């Protein structure tokens, strides 16, 4: 699948912090698309170390289709419950978007039931949008539920996070935008995700937010991202990792910032595409307050939970991964 043969060196454990962390020391990042449900606590730790202050977890497909509405309900509950808590243990503020993803919109009987429970969740604290919704195969049923959810978002005054399809991407992206406009959504309330060199121009020209997913092999690479920011600037552009159960990288945002810095991109532009723009876009929900993650680190100490060991004030339940001894 990959073109990068493993060398002896790449199998060695890393003894030190990677060099790129030096370049972004003190910077803060906001990853507006990452599926932490599928990631380990090690990832949260690494993200916090790399400066990720807050994230958005969009509702998505779990790798195989769900067969009942209750599993959807439990999934949505976990996004505002357990996952929110898990992130807080690392001082990361966790937001989410709620929605019926395009793949599962194809099961009409189930989709109808999911649409009924969505209002239970979309008004909850920390729910910053309806997402990720849109097209996968671009079927009639996908369109039906995409439209229905656009209406929900418009009524609730919530931003929309659009998943654009892998296949027939350019036309799928155009169609997604056409339909959003048709339903009376203001383009500034719509974040069009997973853009590439072929889609970005039109998305920006029509006034939508353009999000880019740094995801190996299938979506955007970060060297290409550097070139895109050099060409299009930083207005209405944001970067995310969309890290999930596939081969992906939850550090994609900080790594891309480091690469941008190395490539001479202005610090303010880096700040906009890896932090500020995503906040501006999703804060239109009224559910984002930057003070939330400034206080997260303090709240965190009180909430900390660590299995069978007892934490005392200020103690970090941190494991030294390079230590052979486990206590």
């Amino acid at each position, binding site marked *: 699948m990959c073109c990068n043969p493993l060398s002896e060196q790449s199998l060695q454990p890393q003894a030190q912090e990677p060099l790129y962390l030096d370049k972004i020391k003190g910077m803060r990042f906001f990853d507006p698309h990452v599926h932490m449900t599928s990631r380990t606590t090690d990832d949260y730790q690494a993200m916090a170390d790399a400066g990720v202050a807050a994230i958005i977890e969009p509702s998505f497909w779990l790798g195989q289709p769900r067969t009942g509405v209750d599993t959807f309900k439990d999934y949505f509950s976990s996004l505002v419950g357990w996952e929110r*808590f898990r992130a807080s243990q690392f001082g990361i503020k966790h937001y989410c978007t709620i929605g019926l993803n395009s793949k599962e919109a194809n099961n009409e009987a189930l989709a109808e039931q999911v649409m009924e429970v969505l209002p239970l969740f979309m008004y909850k604290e920390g729910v910053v949008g309806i997402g990720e919704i849109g097209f996968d195969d671009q079927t009639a049923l996908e369109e039906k539920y995409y439209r229905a959810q656009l209406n929900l978002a418009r009524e609730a005054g919530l931003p929309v996070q659009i998943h654009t399809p892998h296949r027939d991407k350019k036309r799928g992206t155009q169609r997604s935008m056409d339909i959003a406009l048709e339903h009376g959504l203001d383009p500034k309330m719509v974040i069009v995700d997973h853009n590439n060199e072929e889609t970005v121009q039109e998305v920006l020209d029509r006034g939508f937010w353009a999000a880019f997913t740094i995801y190996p092999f299938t979506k955007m690479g970060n060297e290409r991202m550097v070139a895109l920011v050099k060409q299009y600037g930083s207005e209405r552009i944001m970067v995310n990792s969309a890290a999930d159960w596939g081969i992906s990288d939850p550090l994609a945002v900080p790594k891309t910032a480091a690469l941008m810095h190395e490539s001479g991109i202005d610090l303010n532009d880096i700040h906009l595409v890896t932090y500020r723009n995503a906040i501006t876009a999703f804060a239109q929900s009224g559910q984002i307050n930057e003070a939330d993650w400034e206080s997260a680190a303090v709240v965190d100490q009180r909430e900390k939970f660590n299995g069978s060991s*007892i934490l005392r004030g200020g103690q970090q339940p941190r494991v030294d991964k390079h230590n052979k001894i486990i206590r």
Partner: protein
Amino acid sequence: MTHQPYLYDQQALLGLLTPLLITQLQEKGLAWLQQQQAKALISEGFQQWNLTFVALPRHAGKQTVVLADDQLAAMARLVPGFTPRHWPADRLARAWWLLQWPAASQEAYVRSISTLFHTGSMEELTALYSCLPLLAWPESWVAQTAEGIRSNIGDVLEAIMLHNPYPARYLPVPAWNQLVLKAFFTGKPVVEITGLQERNNPDLQQMLHDYAAERKAAGRTVDPQLSLLASQVLL
């Protein structure tokens, strides 16, 4: 079994909470809440009640509401052990809202409040468990409380374990013992558990004794608070 929804004067508690809530809300928030109240009271089913419960933080805010000692004492007179000393305004507002929830039918009440538990966010769960001593049909919440103790969300555990009179009054011995053990396991200040000494029992003492031995065998420290309940534990 009880045959009335509340075993305390819930209208009197509502009377104490209402002026408190008014001081916390902006004019706009108050107008919104009155409107929601009017809509809910004439509505069928629970959707209107649910939506308001969920949306309350938008209008109430999260500032800590400081209560005077006499206010706390008045509440504790109505609901023994209920002391919302450091509650954020949105939690107090949720308590106020829950007190007005249609409670005449036990079946409908339990089903609708259970839905709140099953779909609750971290903050909503914290509010719901903190409000256990205020809920109608009190004997209906034993299993939900035991379920909450199985949670690993820190705030949820604290809401059940600390300064909450419900568990000591209603939990059977096995669930109570799990509560106390879990408080030790998760490093909670166990002296803040309401009814800690009154509900102490030989089975719990045995468990704590074994727990201390297990910690020592692993070369780990033993919480000195253990000796509060199991004096024979060697620290």
